[in-house]
C-alpha cells in the first residue's frame, strides 16, 4: 500500500504550487489511474514517488515505511517509465536492456533472465538487434516499458505511456499493462486519455491544479450518487428550473441538472417543453470520466 498524505510541492520561482496537500491511498496489486489535464500535477506527483523530487510538506509511505527508507532497503522496489523515450537511440534494444539491467545491479544469470523476460513481455523479439533510434513509436514505447520492468518492481510508475503511438500499439500496451498486477506489480498510471484509464484502472484519482478532485474505485466514481441529466437546449434554462435542480452550466446552453430520482425525468422534460425550451441533446444514466471531470471542474479534460 502506498500512502500519500498531505503532500505539497512548489517549483522554484513558480507562481502557484504544483501540488497542494495531495492525499491518496493506493492499494497494492492493482492499476491506479491518475487522471488530469496537462499541467494538473500528475508528472510532479510521479517525480515525487520516483524520488526525483522531495516533497516540501506531507509524507509518502510505501508498505508503512517512509518512501526514502523503502527505496534504500530495496532500490528496485519502485521503477519509473517516463513520458520521454528515456534510452539510448544509438544502442540496440538488447544493449539498452543490458545497460539498464547493469545499472540496476543485475549480473550473470539474473541479468539474462530479466532481459529475456522483459523482451518477451514487450514482444520485442523481432527487433532485439535493431538500434532503438530506428524503432517505430510503438516499439519505442514497448522498449521504454520493458526497461521499467527489468528490476521486477513492486511499484511501477507509468507517466503517459501511450503518448504518440498508433491505435494498435496502444491496444497492445494497454493489454500488457493490464496484465502486470497479476505478476504482483502495483501500477500507477497517469494519462489524460479517459478511455485508457476507464479501460484498465480499478482505482482512480482525478487531479486538477495540484489538488485531488476525487479519489476512489472507478465504478463508484462513475456511478453518480444522484441521477444527473446532461442536456443541451436551444435557449437558456429558466431560472426556477435551474434553482430547483441545482443546475450547473457546462458549456453554452449545456446544463447538468440533478434529479431526485429517475422518475423525475419525464416530468422535467414536460416542464421544459411547456416553457418553450427545445432539447437538442441529452444524456442520462452512468457517466463517463469526461462528464465526471466536467461536473467537478466545469471544464473539459482536454481543455
Amino acid at each position, binding site marked *: 500500500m502506498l500512502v500519500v498524505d498531505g503532500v505539497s510541492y512548489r*517549483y*522554484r520561482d513558480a507562481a502557484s504550487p504544483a501540488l497542494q496537500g495531495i492525499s491518496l491511498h493506493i492499494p497494492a496489486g492493482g492499476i491506479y489511474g491518475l487522471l488530469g489535464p496537462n499541467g494538473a500535477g500528475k508528472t510532479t506527483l510521479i517525480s515525487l514517488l*520516483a*524520488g*526525483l*523530487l*522531495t516533497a516540501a510538506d506531507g509524507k509518502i509511505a510505501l508498505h508503512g515505511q517512509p518512501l526514502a527508507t523503502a*527505496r534504500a532497503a530495496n*532500490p528496485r522496489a*519502485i*521503477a*519509473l517509465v*517516463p*513520458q*520521454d*523515450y*528515456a*534510452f*539510448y*537511440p*544509438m*544502442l540496440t534494444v538488447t*544493449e539498452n536492456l*543490458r*545497460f*539498464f*539491467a*547493469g*545499472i*540496476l*545491479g*543485475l*549480473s550473470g544469470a539474473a541479468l539474462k533472465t530479466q532481459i529475456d523476460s522483459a523482451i518477451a513481455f514487450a514482444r520485442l523479439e523481432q527487433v532485439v538487434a535493431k*538500434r532503438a533510434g530506428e524503432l517505430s513509436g510503438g516499439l519505442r514505447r514497448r522498449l521504454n516499458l520493458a*526497461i521499467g520492468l527489468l*528490476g521486477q518492481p513492486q511499484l511501477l510508475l507509468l507517466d503517459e505511456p501511450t503518448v504518440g503511438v498508433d491505435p494498435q500499439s496502444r491496444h497492445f500496451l494497454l493489454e500488457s499493462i493490464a496484465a502486470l498486477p497479476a505478476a504482483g506489480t502495483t501500477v500507477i498510471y497517469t494519462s489524460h486519455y479517459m478511455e485508457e484509464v476507464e479501460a484498465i484502472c480499478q482505482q482512480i484519482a482525478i487531479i486538477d491544479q495540484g489538488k485531488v478532485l476525487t479519489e476512489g474505485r472507478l465504478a463508484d466514481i462513475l456511478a453518480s450518487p444522484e441521477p444527473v441529466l446532461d442536456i443541451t437546449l436551444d435557449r437558456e434554462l429558466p431560472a426556477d428550473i435551474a434553482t430547483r435542480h441545482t443546475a450547473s452550466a457546462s458549456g453554452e446552453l449545456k446544463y447538468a441538472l440533478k434529479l431526485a430520482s429517475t422518475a423525475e425525468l419525464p416530468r422535467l422534460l414536460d416542464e421544459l417543453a411547456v416553457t418553450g425550451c427545445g432539447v437538442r441533446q441529452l444524456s442520462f444514466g452512468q457517466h463517463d470520466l469526461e462528464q465526471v471531470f466536467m461536473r467537478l471542474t466545469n471544464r473539459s479534460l482536454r481543455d
Partner: protein
Amino acid sequence: MSARLLALWLKESIALLRDRHGLLALFIMPTIFILVMTLALRDSFTPGARIDASYALVDLDQSASSAALSKRLSKAASFNRIDHAGNLDAARAAVLAGRLNLALVVPPGFGERLLTPGGADGKPAEPLTLLLDPALSPALQLAFRNQVMAALGGVRADELTHKAGKLFGLPVAPGASADKDWPDEIRSEAVRRDSNASLPSSVQQNVPAWLIFAMFFVVIPISSIFIIERQHGTLQRLRAMGLPFRLVLAGKLLPFFVVNQVQALLMVLVGMYLVPLFGSEALQLPSTPALLLAWWAVSAAVSLAAVAWALLIASLAKTSEQATIVGGVGNILMGAIGGIMVPKFIMPAAMQQLAALSPMAWALEGFHTVMLRHGGLTDVLPSIMQLLAFSLLSLVAAVWLNRRALAARS
C-alpha cells in the same frame, strides 16, 4: 558499484564506436594535421635547410672576383639558385613575372674596386644591386642580404690574403686555393638533459601539438551523448534508478581517457611510421623508461583535462549544436593561442604571454619538456599540475551546473 560502472563504460564505448563523426574528429583529423603540418613546416624546424626562394646572379663584371662571389653564394646553398638571367633586363623581367624571388646584380668594375670600395680614384664604387620580389618576406630578404654580405666579406678576405702574400713574398703552398673552405664556425646545440640528443624536428613539434588538439576534441562525442541523455530524460531515469551523478561522470571519464590514450598511441605511430613515408624525419620517442613514464604522465594529464573540459561544455550547452560550436571554437582558440597551430616561438612577445593561459600550451610545454629537453617527471610536474587543476575546476563547474539545472527543475 563495479557492475554499474562496467555498464556505463560499455555503453559509452558502444555509443562512441557508432559515432562516425566523433571518430573522424578523434582519429582521422589529427592524422591529417600531423602529416600536412609536419611536411609544411619541415624546413622551418631544420637549421640550414634549403629555403624555397629562388635567386639569380647577373654578373656584369665577369671578373675573377665576381666568379669567386658567385661560387661562395652557391656554396651557402640555402636559397635556390637559378642561372638563366643573363642580363639586367632579363633578371628584372623574371622577378616581375614571379619566376625569381631575388636577383643580385654585380656591376661592371666590381673586381677592380673590391678592395677600394670608397673609390680611391675619386670615383665612388657602384654598389651591388638586389632586385626583390615585393611579396618575399622581409626575413628572407634580410637572410639573403646577410648571405651576400658574408660571401662578399669572404671574397675580400681572400683577395687581401692573396695580395698580402704577394707583397711580402710569402710562399704559397702547392694546391692552396684563395677561396679556401673554412669549417663551420658556428655550431648549433639543443640544450637538454642528455648530450647525445639531436635538434628538434618538425615531426617532434607537430605530433604532440596535434595530438593535444585531437585529445581535446573528445568534447564532440562526450557532449553529444550527454545531451541526448539529458534531452531524452535518460539522466532522470538513471537518477530514479538510484544512480548518483558522480557515477555518471565517472562512467564517462574512463572510456574517454582510454580513447585519448589510444589516440596518443596512434599519433605516435603516425609520427614514427607514416610521416617518414612522405619524406620527413621519423618521430623519436624518449628512449629510457623514466622519460617514457614522464611522457605518459603528461598524456594522462592532458586526457583528464580534455575529458573534464568536454563534460563542462556538455553541461553548459543545451543542444548538440551548441556543444559543437562552443566546444569546437573553444578548442580552436585554445589551439591558436596555445602554440598548436602556430609555433609559440613565431608569435610576438604579447601573444606568447597570452599562450600561457591556454591548457593546450601547458600540455605542449609538458610534451616538449620530455621530447625536446629530455626532462623527467619532476620537470613535467608544473605542466601536469596546471592540467590537473584545470581538470578539477572543470569537473567542479560541471557538477555545479548540473546541480543548478536540477534545482531549477525542482
